[in-house]
């Protein structure tokens, strides 16, 4: 494999880098070479060490052994500022902006153009930001505060930041996890342009097709160790998955055929002013219905309103024939509804609490007697579900925040499945989790449906929507624009409806 590498010196490289955190060996002798004008993918399951590797390149972590090489010369980054000065720009998974400051200030923080006596030249800061956005071809107002920007726009701000100091190396940690198709296309356009100008790109994504789409070379990590570095050309997705998990993967979308039962969830003319309008649909027992659409189309908002987290202005929700009182999640839970929220860190879990306690949160009614907690009952209930979902942990009392993303997602699922729901709403169930866990989650959803649970799945991952759903509802700007059966649905038909090019009857508008 080495013979296929360019003759030139890599712009930035790691040679035999190891890094441990306490007893955990996050990286073991990993090497990586980034060349100018080349997009390099970093593949691996959650917990394989990708984030640690990035943070080593970014100067956040210092390697225990091994070297970071800049233009072939060993360097030591003592902090993110050093890496930045060396021309390394990092776009983290969760954009790191200052919400209270303007977009322009966000881009130039710490590097603002100055006028006499070291004062910040606010006018040229704004001018330079406008120029960057013009170059990127996006209409963002540089004076606007970063608060309230969509994730896609936040990422554009990060890219503008990278452009602003003529980064020689651009590192992107799962930039596409929260983006829609068109936003991904725009991002890739920008990245390709940068690459052609000679920027070295390191790209991480759980969406394999993106790796094949954008990158020339891929390095795979498994359990902190280096597995391979090779050109993407000639590889298949299966090859890559095999390198990542070290085994063949059972089918990624194990959809079982199920008997459809009675209507379990009936939503009629649900409206919330300015958020979604006139949303009606049904989900039957044994059915997986997917709610597709662009981010911001109002899908999660519908789910939240159905579950009673948010109020709605009109319409009604029935679960198993019983009408739900709006704005009352505890009654919804009682009626057999469960909602696995979109953001597991902020909404799904209490990050500082143990696995046991997190799962126990939904079960106080069962595990409490005369107002007192029965810790033993809570423990066995949690253990039962953690084992059933194959959560990987060393002790059930481990703090949830220390688990990998995929395992955290399993804990959220366990927490809600423990309530024995008849209708399960899952919002982006596999966002940011690795292929192996993803397949497990899919298998779980499929077997739940087979047991007669009605599943409503919100997802921005089109292959997942197409692979798992019996029926697909597509939303566009707060309205349902299409209802497609498994047979009718293709990437094209779903995207057409999601972007509003088709009305509900399926005719072109």
């Amino acid at each position: 494999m080495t013979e296929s590498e360019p003759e030139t010196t890599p712009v930035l490289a790691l040679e035999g880098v190891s890094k441990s955190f306490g007893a955990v060996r996050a990286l073991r002798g990993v090497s990586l070479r980034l060349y100018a004008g080349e997009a390099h993918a970093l593949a691996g399951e959650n917990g394989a060490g990708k984030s640690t590797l990035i943070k080593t390149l970014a100067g956040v972590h210092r390697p225990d052994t091994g070297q970071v090489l800049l233009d072939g010369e060993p360097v030591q980054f003592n902090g993110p500022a050093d890496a930045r000065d060396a021309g390394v720009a990092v776009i983290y998974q969760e954009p790191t902006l200052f919400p209270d400051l303007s977009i322009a200030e966000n881009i130039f923080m710490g590097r603002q153009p100055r006028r006499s006596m070291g004062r910040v030249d606010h006018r040229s800061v704004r001018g330079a930001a406008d120029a960057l956005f013009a170059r990127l071809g996006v209409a963002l107002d540089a004076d606007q505060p970063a608060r309230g920007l969509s994730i896609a726009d936040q990422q554009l701000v990060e890219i503008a930041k990278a452009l602003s100091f003529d980064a020689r190396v651009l590192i992107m940690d799962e930039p596409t996890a929260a983006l829609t198709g068109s936003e991904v296309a725009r991002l890739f356009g920008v990245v390709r342009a940068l690459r052609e100008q000679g920027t070295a790109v390191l790209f991480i994504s759980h969406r394999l097709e993106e790796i094949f789409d954008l990158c020339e070379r891929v390095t795979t990590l498994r359990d902190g160790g280096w597995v391979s570095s090779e050109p993407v050309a000639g590889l298949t997705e299966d090859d890559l998955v095999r390198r990542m998990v070290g085994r063949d993967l059972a089918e990624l979308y194990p959809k079982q055929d199920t008997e459809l039962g009675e209507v379990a969830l009936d939503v009629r003319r649900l409206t919330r002013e300015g958020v979604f309008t006139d949303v009606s649909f049904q989900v039957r027992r044994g059915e997986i219905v997917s709610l597709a659409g662009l981010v911001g189309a109002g899908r999660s908002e519908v789910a939240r309103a159905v579950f009673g987290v948010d109020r709605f202005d009109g319409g009604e929700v029935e679960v198993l024939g019983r009408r739900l009182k709006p704005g009352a999640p505890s009654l919804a839970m009682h009626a057999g509804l469960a909602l696995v929220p979109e953001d597991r860190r902020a909404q799904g879990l209490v990050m500082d609490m143990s696995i046991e306690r997190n799962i126990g949160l939904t079960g106080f009614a069962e595990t409490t007697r005369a107002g007192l907690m029965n810790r033993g009952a809570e423990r066995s209930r949690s253990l039962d579900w953690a084992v059933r979902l194959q959560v990987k942990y060393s002790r059930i009392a481990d703090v949830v925040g220390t688990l990998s993303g995929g395992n955290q997602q399993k804990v959220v699922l366990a927490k809600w499945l423990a309530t024995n729901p008849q209708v399960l709403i899952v919002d982006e169930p596999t966002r940011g989790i690795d292929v192996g866990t993803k397949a497990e989650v899919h298998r779980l959803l499929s077997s739940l449906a087979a047991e007669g649970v009605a599943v409503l799945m919100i997802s921005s991952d089109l292959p997942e929507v197409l692979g798992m759903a019996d029926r697909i509802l597509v939303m566009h700007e707060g309205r349902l624009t299409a209802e497609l059966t498994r047979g009718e649905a293709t990437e094209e038909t779903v995207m057409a409806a999601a972007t509003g090019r088709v009305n509900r009857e399926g005719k072109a508008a």
Partner: protein
Amino acid sequence: MTLTAPPVAEDAPAEGAARRRFIDKVFKARELAVAAVLVLMLLATQLSNTEFLSRQGITDLLLNATILVLVATGQAVVVITRNVDLSVGSVLGISAFAAGNYLQGGGSSLVAVVLAVGLGALFGALNGALVSLGKVPALVVTLGTLYIVRGIDSIWVGSRQITADSLPDGFVDFGHNGIWVVPYLALLAGAVLFCVGYYLRSYRSGREMYALGSSPEAAQLAGIPVRGRIMTAYVLCGALAGLAGALYLARFGNVDSATGSGYELTVVSAVVVGGVAFTGGSGTVYGAALGALLLTSINSVLPAIGVSSVWVTAINGILLLLAIAVDRILALRVAAVLRKQAARMRSARHA
């Protein structure tokens, strides 16, 4: 579709700009609102008691506010970095005594002020070191130093007291005289306020304080020297508390071991009433100064309109809650506007 697309795309930024102006106004209005309440209150009082805004009345208002304005300025800087300094009352007390003790021994006024500022900066550095290196919540750390400094003060001062007649005349006069209606002390506080405000707005390190208050994690990743900036904020806050101690001595001439007790809560109220968000990253020192002016003015307003001054603390409390409520409502409004704007931009882009 393609025919309608261009106008939509052109409209979006204009719409965005209009929304942005609204948001700007809302934030600026935060300081304007405090100023408006202050002016209304003073005018109303003047109407019911024409003696209120006499020359002496205005001078008194400014004198009363001076010390709180200084300490609130320092506190605002700390709060902007998403920390808090509860030890300012104790630091003010001990610096005032240190300056007085030195002056009683026949020292020069200028050195006494420098001494107070230096002592304050020293305690500020201690706070800064504990907060930034120890990574302990500022609330707890500075509550600790509040008691420690007050303890040192009590042991050192004992039952001694500094009185105005033991201080040099020049120093005491400086505390009472001024140019026309404006006391020297207020001029000094105003100059300090302006310098700190200008620093926060126009220097990289000042902007970095806003940045790290807005998002500490992002600040770390952006390579901002977080510890250094927190340290600077605390040293500045301590130094201003020390300066306020020296001015306290000049104004009142009377310092004992209880000077400045409980002052930290007044200072924090002033800062919050003035629109500096406790969550960091927003607000200005000018707002904090207006908040300080508002709170101290109430002390003068109530007797002038014949209300017992026992109401002062209750009214301060109400103002504080009102300020927080207004902040919350504004935050929700702004969030709603931004959301609509984002949705509009998005639909324009997809059209």
